[in-house]
């Protein structure tokens, strides 16, 4: 029997937008639009999207935001981040805001430019999120750290979406770390209202570069957030990534990590705190094609109410990648009977000389531990918070900058406070 799946409202809206843009598009943008026209919106029949069926989860495809949609909102940096003395680079609805940013005070060795979207995107690999951003974003923000520069001041890439009218915001960011450069970048994703924000990040680390990348996804709980990070690591470079996911109605945070030369390290940790009916998908693909590289993924989820967390991890170790150390660990704490966690850690190994481990646990708060804390006088909610905090702590530990670690710990604790007082 030939079943024709009925197209959803979101798909029909997307198709219409694609057709309009295709009339005048060329180059990379045209390719992305063609790809969208051909592939449509991802759905559960596609392996990478089995748990996150956009066809079902996204109700509409909103019109791309324009500069005028900024409105009069005040886009305040959270005090916890402001207190870090960050250098701010602020975008609203995907557009760089000179008046809100510290463009005249970039740290030494850091440069920033805005370039046409078609100038810098990889067009050969088609991926829904990349295609969407390439097709609809108007420009790319390029942040470069010069070779050898050791940037102490954290750089904050703040993204706000004003969803007072339903819009779709698209942001493309390119981060290039020069040889031997080191920096700490914090990316915040926030907004207000029912909106869609799509975020494409292309990060490359040259040889011996060292990047601490901390991301705070705190989108409005009505929003849909799609993010794809494509990361390439040069020889002996180090990536230390941390993501705190607590926002959006539906979110997909995908990372594609590729080692291009030996002896590099990628440490990825994620703390995911969801409640209500939030759906949060973390998908990480690590491709070991060269020798002696380490990847380590630590995913700590806390799911309350009817929230649903997803972790899909794939570590590929290709024939030449001897001496690979690849680890994935996903541990989820369910705070209600109706919360759900789906974990799918996978290993694809084509080389014997490797150390790989993967594991996934899903559990509830340990009653015996809870009793021990309560028997010392700590009330139930506080005792639970302490145990939840301890669980999340396993992901926060990897943040190297102590101040940034404290700030992120504070933000995670804030989520717990909202829980304790509810």
């Amino acid at each position, binding site marked *: 029997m030939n079943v024709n799946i009925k197209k959803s409202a979101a798909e029909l809206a997307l198709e219409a937008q694609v057709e309009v843009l295709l009339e005048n598009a060329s180059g990379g943008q045209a390719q992305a639009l063609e790809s969208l026209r051909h592939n449509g919106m991802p759905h559960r029949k596609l392996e990478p999207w089995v748990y996150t069926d956009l066809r079902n989860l996204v109700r509409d495809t909103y019109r791309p935001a324009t500069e005028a949609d900024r409105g009069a909102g005040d886009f305040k940096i959270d005090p916890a981040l402001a207190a870090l003395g960050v250098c701010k680079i602020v975008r609203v609805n995907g557009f760089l805001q000179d008046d809100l940013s510290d463009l005249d005070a970039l740290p030494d060795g850091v440069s920033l430019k805005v370039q046409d979207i078609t100038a810098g995107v990889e067009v050969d690999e088609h991926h829904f999120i990349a295609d969407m951003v390439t097709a609809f974003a108007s420009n790319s923000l390029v942040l470069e750290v010069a070779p050898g520069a050791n940037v102490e001041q954290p750089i904050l890439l703040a993204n706000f979406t004003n969803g007072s009218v339903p819009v779709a915001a698209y942001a493309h960011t390119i981060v290039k770390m020069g040889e031997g450069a080191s920096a700490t970048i914090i990316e915040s994703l926030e907004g207000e209202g029912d909106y869609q924000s799509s975020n494409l990040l292309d990060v490359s680390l040259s040889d011996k570069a060292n990047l601490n990348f901390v991301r705070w996804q705190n989108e409005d709980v009505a929003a849909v957030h799609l993010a794809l990070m494509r990361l390439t690591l040069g020889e002996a470079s180090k990536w230390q990534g941390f993501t705190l996911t607590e926002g959006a109605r539906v979110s997909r945070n995908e990372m594609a990590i590729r080692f291009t030369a030996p002896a590099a390290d990628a440490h990825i940790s994620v703390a995911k705190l969801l409640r209500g009916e939030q759906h949060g998908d973390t998908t990480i693909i690590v491709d070991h094609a060269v020798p002696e590289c380490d990847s380590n993924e630590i995913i700590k989820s806390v799911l309350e109410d009817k929230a649903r967390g997803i972790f899909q991890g794939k570590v590929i170790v290709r024939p030449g990648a001897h001496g690979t150390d690849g680890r994935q660990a996903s541990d989820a704490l369910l705070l209600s009977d109706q919360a759900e966690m789906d974990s799918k850690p996978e290993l694809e190994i084509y080389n014997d000389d490797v150390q790989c481990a993967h594991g996934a646990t899903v559990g509830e708060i340990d009653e015996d531990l809870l009793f021990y804390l309560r028997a*010392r*006088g700590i*009330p139930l909610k506080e005792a639970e918070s302490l*145990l939840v905090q*301890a669980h999340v702590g396993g992901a926060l530990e990897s943040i190297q900058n102590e101040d940034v670690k404290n700030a992120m710990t504070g933000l995670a604790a804030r989520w717990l406070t909202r829980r304790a007082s509810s």
Partner: protein
Amino acid sequence: MLSIKNLHAVVDGQEILRGLNLEVPAGEVHAIMGPNGAGKSTLSYVLAGKAGYEVTKGSVTLNGENILEMQPDERASAGVFLAFQYPMEIPGVPTLTFLRQALNSQLRTRGEDEMSTPDFMRLIREKSAELKIEQDMLKRAVNVGFSGGEKKRNEVLQMAVLQPKLCVLDETDSGLDIDALRIVSDGVNALRSPDRAFVIITHYQRLLDYIVPDKVHVLSKGRIVRTGDKDLALELEDKGYAEFEETAA
């Protein structure tokens, strides 16, 4: 101080405590001895309020207050402290954080002011030195990677910091070598006071050489079957529990 009357408790559908009576006046130390499986740990859990330990009959009061109605944390704030036979390991929660939160929670529940950081640190330094607990151990997660003896010393440290009214120690001597036994006993003896009562649960008489009890009770098959002074412990050490296991059947 502690008054237990005709206490019956059921665990997993099985009646474990079967009409237990016990009076421990303030200022006294009472030892509870008995064969394995007699219900000693069950009694300690019932006092602390562990879920699944259901009281079906009888009463337990602390200074006239019915504690059976209280949540475990409320009992702790009211002055009940259980030193666990098997202290829990709590990964990710530093011992200091845990102690501080426990103390301040209790103070808050009792309507008192929380303790300031310097005062707290002073208190901890003093008490941990008495128990020969390294400062480094306090920074580690609660009981994680602690030896058996360190766990028991940590229990006594918590007791010393929280200053409870009723201290119930469940087999605190098990797994301790003679030096650790002395340190732990000194810690307990230092806490003896006219307005505090102790229930010391032990299988062996040895501990009672160091913590000399006012009374010794024998618990068998869920009941106190005999009460005497400290010499009763020596007699039990000599004869074993066989007599009680039979008579109580």
